[in-house]
């Protein structure tokens, strides 16, 4: 049975975590993610779980390390500057192969930045983020419903791969309210975790560790990790393609921007421009194949992001020069509008088709 509710993104995410069996939450206040720890402070005691406000982001992620190593589903959340502080622990957890969920409700940067929505942490999220050779799985919700659904999946993926999973959203997705279908599902039984440190009763001791004394052992370990990341690439890619069947121009955007891009696609279609949208839902693994395959069908890509050209690099790598890829971004917490996306896409198409058929000339405003 499903319940239909009006919820804030941050709260929907927190409730989904509870229902997904998360029983330890360690966090630290930072805007715009405060509703998550606040919700957890209220909700965790009701389900016999742990909420603890840590003394810092660094401590919070290391508490997650301890709890995850003890076999419990654990989570922390923060926003951009706080996520930088958590990178130490995320790297250790990737190295020690511990499952956890980390939520980044992105704000502007660099430095302290502003509290408005931004997507400037794309590189940090998708290229490892901390030190060393590793990746985290990155999920990018585009609605409050997805904040909920992807959180459910995040815990399963973390356990499946014994790897940190990042939920990369932004201030708008965290703060806005939308109706959601709340699944009446509570996960109470987890797959056994025979590697966890729960006390060596009747068995040899378990060790949670990311330290390798010899280069050979470290290399062997890293290769094993990368085999796992390859499996993610093979099995976990998620992408939405929308109105791409006959599209001549593909907009590429994730998260909040993808919603604005959809409105831009509608505008373009009204004006006779065959536009469509590719929305990566997993940012790592990146939907390279989908984008590469579609590159043969379209005249150009327009990549729209709330950052100064981060997502566009992955799109270019995926397109492999098959079609032109143009970047349009806003930064500092400013949003693109459907009209500005339309205008950029229009200019691009006009430039590409000028002299061929001039079909876009007539709609210059």
């Amino acid at each position, binding site marked *: 049975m499903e319940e239909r509710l009006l919820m804030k993104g941050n709260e929907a995410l927190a409730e989904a975590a509870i229902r997904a069996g998360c029983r330890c939450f360690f966090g630290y206040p930072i805007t715009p993610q405060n509703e998550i720890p606040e919700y957890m402070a209220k909700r965790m005691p009701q389900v016999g779980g742990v909420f603890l406000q840590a003394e810092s982001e660094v401590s919070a992620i*290391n508490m997650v390390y301890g709890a995850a190593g003890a076999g419990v589903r654990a989570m922390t959340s923060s926003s951009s500057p706080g996520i930088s502080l958590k990178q130490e622990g995320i790297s250790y957890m990737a190295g020690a192969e511990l499952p956890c969920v980390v939520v980044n409700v992105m704000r502007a940067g660099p430095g302290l930045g502003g509290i408005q929505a931004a997507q400037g942490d794309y590189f940090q999220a998708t290229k490892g983020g901390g030190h060393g050779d590793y990746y985290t799985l990155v999920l990018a919700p585009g609605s409050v419903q997805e904040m909920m659904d992807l959180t459910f999946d995040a815990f399963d993926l973390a356990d499946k791969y014994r790897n940190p999973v990042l939920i990369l959203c932004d201030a708008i997705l965290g703060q806005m309210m939308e109706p959601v279908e709340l699944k009446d599902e509570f996960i109470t039984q987890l797959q056994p975790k025979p590697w966890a*440190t729960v006390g060596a009763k009747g068995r040899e001791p378990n060790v949670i560790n990311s330290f390798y004394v010899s280069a050979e052992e470290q290399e062997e370990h890293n290769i094993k990790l990368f085999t796992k990341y390859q499996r993610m690439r093979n099995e976990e890619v998620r992408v939405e393609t929308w109105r791409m069947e006959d599209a001549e121009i593909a907009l590429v955007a994730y998260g909040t921007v993808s919603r604005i891009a959809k409105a831009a696609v509608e505008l373009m279609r009204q004006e006779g421009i065959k536009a469509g949208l590719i929305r990566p839902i997993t940012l790592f693994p990146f939907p390279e194949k989908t984008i590469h395959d579609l590159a043969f069908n379209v005249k150009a890509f327009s990549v729209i992001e709330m950052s100064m050209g981060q997502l566009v690099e992955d799109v270019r790598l995926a397109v492999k020069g098959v079609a032109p890829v143009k970047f349009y971004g806003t930064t500092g917490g400013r949003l693109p509008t459907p009209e500005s996306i339309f205008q950029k896409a229009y200019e691009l198409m006009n430039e590409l088709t000028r002299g061929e058929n001039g079909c876009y000339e007539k709609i210059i405003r």
Partner: protein
Amino acid sequence: MAAMKRLFGRPEALRDVPTHYCPGCPHGIVHRLIAEVIDELEIREKTIGIAPVGCAVLAYNYFNCDMQEAAHGRASAVATGIKRALPDSIVFSYQGDGDLASIGTAEIVHAAARGENITVIFINNAIYGMTGGQMAPTTLVGQRTTTCPDGRDPRLAGFPIRISEMLATLDGAVYIARASVHNISHLLKAKRCIKTAFQVQLNGEGFAMVEVLCACPTNWGLSAPEAMKWVEKNMIPYYPLWEIKPLLKEGVVRD
């Protein structure tokens, strides 16, 4: 002839493996004291230890119980995560002076302030051993290290931290003791302190820590016997021994 009674042997909580510690290093002694206490309290199968970054980073190879290796300074945060997740387990962290009293000060202060029901063993040898003998937060004034080659000058590098006294001011800290293992009588007292610190956790009383003054012959540039004497002559006067916060809450039995 009747079967001989076993009077001395390797504790079950210590693995039968050689350690990597330098000759004369007291880490092995302290490991053994902890292992003996774990055996005596019969808690090995529910104990989870946390190894630090520093010379004791490989402690997970030596203790015969479940272990986690923490990031530098974060052992008490990791301990908090484990203990909160598994309240019935026994959790101890083993941390050096750089780990606990420098990079991990926030973690240890707040674990103590919250009264986390964990046991912390704090090894103070007044130097960074693993990295080759740099100045520690507990390096004594005038003591030479590779990063204070003319001796620690308080005008440049401040004063050594008495972290046990600091933590003892916190309401959540139930038991704080400082011990030394430079001779047998002190070693036996150190063991009693360690046992009390585990007992505090078993009783659910809150945060307990034992600071153990240790020698580092290799990085101090002394022989093992000289280093033990150096502890007595130079460290103990600055870091006074015994129970800094012996005032246990009612109901806690002292050994």
